[in-house]
């Protein structure tokens, strides 16, 4: 075997051992360094408690403003009529489905490489929320497709890749919670999430790479908007609102998870102390 191949094989084998090795219980954690500053649960709870209202309230207000503007005060479309208003739910939900998965992948990277305890919890708390937004995207898209395209569902590249994203989210939700030892669940979930990240560019470019029933992207970072200005504003406001609401739900869930972990540790140490006394 050539030398280089041998080295690759050794690295792969060691990595395999590294990821599949049985986890000592409780897992040894080196707390320190810049990254692990937020691993301190007390500091995280204090900080996130201060941030949460600034996510939740503006999120709720902007979502409501964007949707009311979109549903009641924005103009209809010249060819789709009033049906176009589904856009103000469908597009922000679709963006959050992809953005949420990107967040899940980043958390998984931190969890896998740096073994950051907060990243473990964050990944576990992002996936149910992301699955919810993806479901909203799929359902609203189906309701939109029925009158405009003439069908509820087709297996074109865009719709199929988003359905795959939904299943990736659901798989992560289940996998993370499937092990008796939570550490193993976090690791397996992180690997799944990182593998699934390959779906994100496929979703984005599906409408350009292949012929699809789904139309192309209306908004890009470069180039003009393909929406009329009074349709663009409510869409952007609703999208910002959806983003903040997503962040607020994940933060609230993460706080609950940290507190849950603290309570469990407290109960365990109490039980152990009682055993010692008895």
């Amino acid at each position, binding site marked *: 075997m050539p030398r280089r191949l041998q080295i690759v094989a050794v690295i792969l084998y060691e990595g395999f051992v590294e990821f599949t090795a049985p986890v000592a219980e409780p897992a040894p954690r080196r707390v320190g360094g810049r990254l692990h500053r937020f691993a301190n649960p007390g500091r995280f709870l204090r900080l996130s408690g201060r941030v949460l209202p600034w996510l939740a309230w503006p999120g709720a207000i902007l979502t409501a403003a964007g949707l009311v503007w979109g549903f009641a005060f924005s103009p209809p*479309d010249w*060819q789709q009529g009033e049906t176009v208003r589904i856009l103000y739910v469908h597009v922000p939900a679709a963006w959050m489905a992809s953005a949420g998965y990107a967040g899940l992948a980043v958390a998984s*990277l931190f969890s896998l490489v740096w073994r950051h305890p907060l990243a473990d919890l964050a990944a576990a708390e992002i996936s149910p929320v992301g699955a919810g937004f993806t479901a909203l995207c799929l359902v609203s898209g189906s309701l939109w497709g029925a009158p405009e*395209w003439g069908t509820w569902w*087709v297996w074109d590249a865009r719709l199929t890749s988003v359905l795959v994203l939904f299943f990736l989210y659901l798989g992560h939700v289940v996998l993370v919670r499937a092990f008796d030892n939570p550490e193993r669940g976090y690791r397996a979930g992180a690997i799944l999430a990182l593998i699934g990240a*390959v779906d994100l560019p496929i979703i984005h470019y599906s409408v350009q790479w*292949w012929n699809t029933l789904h139309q192309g992207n209306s908004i890009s970072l470069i180039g*003009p908007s393909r*929406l009329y200005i009074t349709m663009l504003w409510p869409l952007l406001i609703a999208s910002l609102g959806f983003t903040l609401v997503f962040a607020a739900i994940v933060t609230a869930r993460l706080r609950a998870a940290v507190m849950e972990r603290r309570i469990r540790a407290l109960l365990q140490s109490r039980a152990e102390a009682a055993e010692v006394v008895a």
Partner: protein
Amino acid sequence: MTRKRRRLLLVLACGAGLGSAVALTLSALSADVTFFLLPAAVMAKDPPPSQIFRLGGLVQRGSVVKTEAGGRPLIRFAITDGKAAVPVRFRGVLPDLFREGQGIIALGHLAPGGVFVASEVLAKHDANYMPPAVEAALKKDGLWNPAAGPPPPPATWDTMNPAKPAAKGS
């Protein structure tokens, strides 16, 4: 090499491998991932009548003939991509967006006479969203003649004020 560094390299190596594997697979399968064939591709392939596929393109202007046969609508039209056109026959109810010049996708097979017999017709719509007031203003100002083609590019109207040309006209 620290353990963290090794783990990072491993994740990156796996990511690169997986990414290229998926890219190769998708480019190899691109003919299957494609949801519909354009008329030019159909002409080049000449699929047998037993093969069911989707034909997509624009409804050719002036080609739509609506009749009725046996109490059900029978529609004849042609789908074009600018290079070739395929005549289509469809029995059934068309989606609301069906009209001349509109992008549509038809599911069916190519009958021996070269006519595509569709069992299902879906309408595509583009990613441009324009209020009716702007549509009226564009037509009134002579910036868009619907008979000649699709609306002008969105950059020319996405911030225009439809009240202005109307005020000028009155």
